[in-house]
């Protein structure tokens, strides 16, 4: 991975994002929700590096603070999906039987819906706010982890080193922890990076539609949605926000891709 320029660039952007999110109060030149810093829709320049939005708020500061929402949603969503998916996937794969069948059918049911659409339906029921966005996306992404973990466990269970551990008298918990899990984590880690990027896009999409982060909290999707009304007057505004969103997701996907390549050389272009 270290020798691949795209992966390196992706990693750099991800690190930059982490820095921006964690040091937002220090880095942001202005308060992200303070209005009327100057005339509305001031184009990028000095003193406002990335311009002002229609309410005269500093776009650069809002982007920096917005990265916190994106990262938070990505992290919480993936944590929910990873934890629940790992637990259910291990149980289904290792013990099999009725439980396995039930879990797999439930996964099929969730897979029957386009991810964003199911998340929207769940948000419609739970109520539109950022907490529910994370819960909904977490539920939507969980079956992917269940499937990955289950398949991995099924394959690992048949290995001789597991049979050896059983013969040596190891308990289930120890076998799973020491022998099965370390051997199946590769694809799960790759999936983690992809769902992270997808969650960021999905949060922005839901906020864009008005059912995610609520104003005045700065979220990239919300900014893009506001910018949509000024396409003719200030195309730079949606351009800047969209490019930031695109670059971050591209960077995360590049990192995910190189992780996958490291595991499966056939995917090299």
């Amino acid at each position, binding site marked *: 991975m270290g020798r691949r320029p795209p992966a390196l660039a992706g990693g750099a952007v991800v690190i930059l994002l982490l820095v921006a999110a964690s040091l937002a109060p220090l880095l942001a030149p202005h308060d992200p929700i303070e209005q009327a810093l100057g005339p509305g829709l001031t184009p990028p320049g000095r003193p406002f590096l990335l311009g002002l939005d229609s309410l005269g708020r500093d776009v650069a500061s809002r982007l920096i603070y917005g990265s916190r929402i994106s990262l938070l949603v990505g992290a919480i969503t993936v944590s929910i999906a990873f934890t629940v998916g790992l637990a259910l996937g291990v149980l289904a794969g290792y013990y099999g039987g009725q439980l396995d069948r039930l879990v797999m059918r439930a996964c099929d049911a969730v897979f029957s*819906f*386009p991810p964003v659409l199911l998340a929207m339906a769940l948000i*419609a029921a739970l109520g539109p706010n950022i907490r529910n966005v994370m819960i909904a996306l977490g539920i939507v992404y969980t079956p992917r982890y269940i499937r990955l973990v289950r398949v991995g466990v099924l394959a690992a269970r048949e290995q001789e080193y597991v049979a050896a551990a059983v013969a040596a008298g190891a308990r289930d918990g120890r076998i799973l922890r020491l022998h099965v899990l370390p051997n199946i984590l590769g694809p799960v880690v790759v999936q983690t990076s992809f769902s992270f*990027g997808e969650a960021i896009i999905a949060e922005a*999409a839901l906020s864009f539609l008005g059912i995610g982060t609520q104003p005045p909290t700065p979220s990239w999707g919300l900014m893009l949605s506001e910018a*949509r009304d000024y*396409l003719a007057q200030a195309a730079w505004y*949606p351009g800047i926000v969209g490019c930031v969103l695109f670059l971050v*997701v591209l960077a995360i996907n*590049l990192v995910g891709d190189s992780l996958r390549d490291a595991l499966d050389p056939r995917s090299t272009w």
Partner: protein
Amino acid sequence: MSGYLLRRVLEIVPTLLLITLLVFSLLQVTGGDPIAIMLGPSATSELVEQVRHELELDRPAWVRYPVWLWRVGQGDLGKSIRTRRPVLDMILARVPVTVTLAASATLFSILFGVSGGIYAATRRGRPGSYVVGVAAMVGGSVPNYFLALVLMVVLGVELRLVPIAAFSIDVLRDPQTLPNLLMPTLALGAGYTALLSRITRASVLEVLEQDFVRSARAKGLAEWAVTVRHVLRNALLPIVTQVAINAVYLLGGSVLIETIFALPGIGSLLVESIIARDLPVVQGITLIVGFLFIVVNLLTDLLYSILDPRIRYA
């Protein structure tokens, strides 16, 4: 064949039931009183009770579920809280726009995704393959709503080639509206094209390594004939699966695209209904999309068994 068909149909029953249970429970998980939330703070308590009675929420869930399921089976998806019209009618009125969009984006993705994937696979390690790789990476990472905005600025505002929003895409009745499809098709199709090109490439690469491909080349077949007749035919299954999955998953993306371009499809109906907390409509749309996925999946499986008879006996 009929035995295989029957087995496949029976297999989907539990999944269908779970889907209905999931959709049914959407109305049960609302925080607080769903009726009060849906009707808003200005609703009188009489109205709340009346709607509660109409939706039969005054009875326990385990009593309502079988009744609801029975009605769904009869095609009765209930009434909208917002418009008081039958949910099914509201959805059916929005079908043409969404189907037009999904069909055109699917065609676009097959045209460019499959050919791009084949091209990249047969030229692995050469510049052409990297170009497709970069295009797939970019196409797969750009959010479709941002792409839509870029297209609006470039094609609509700057070049004035097409109207920006709220245009007609009724291409069957009015062929002159065909150019209007350009922006929504590109915005909706880009991501799925990228995905399809990856799947195609991976599948074709796998087949290219097989012995029968070497035999076909050894007997002097032209490279295009090897690719089309021997490689593509055998690489087709994963591609067909992905096309089928995309066709249904496109409906998710079309929510954003319809909203951005102000097109009256199922996606924009869903957004309107969510914002109005009109849960019966949300349930109806979710249920239909879920069912559609299962049906498309079943049809794909049957198509497999025609493409590759070995599957029937597996």
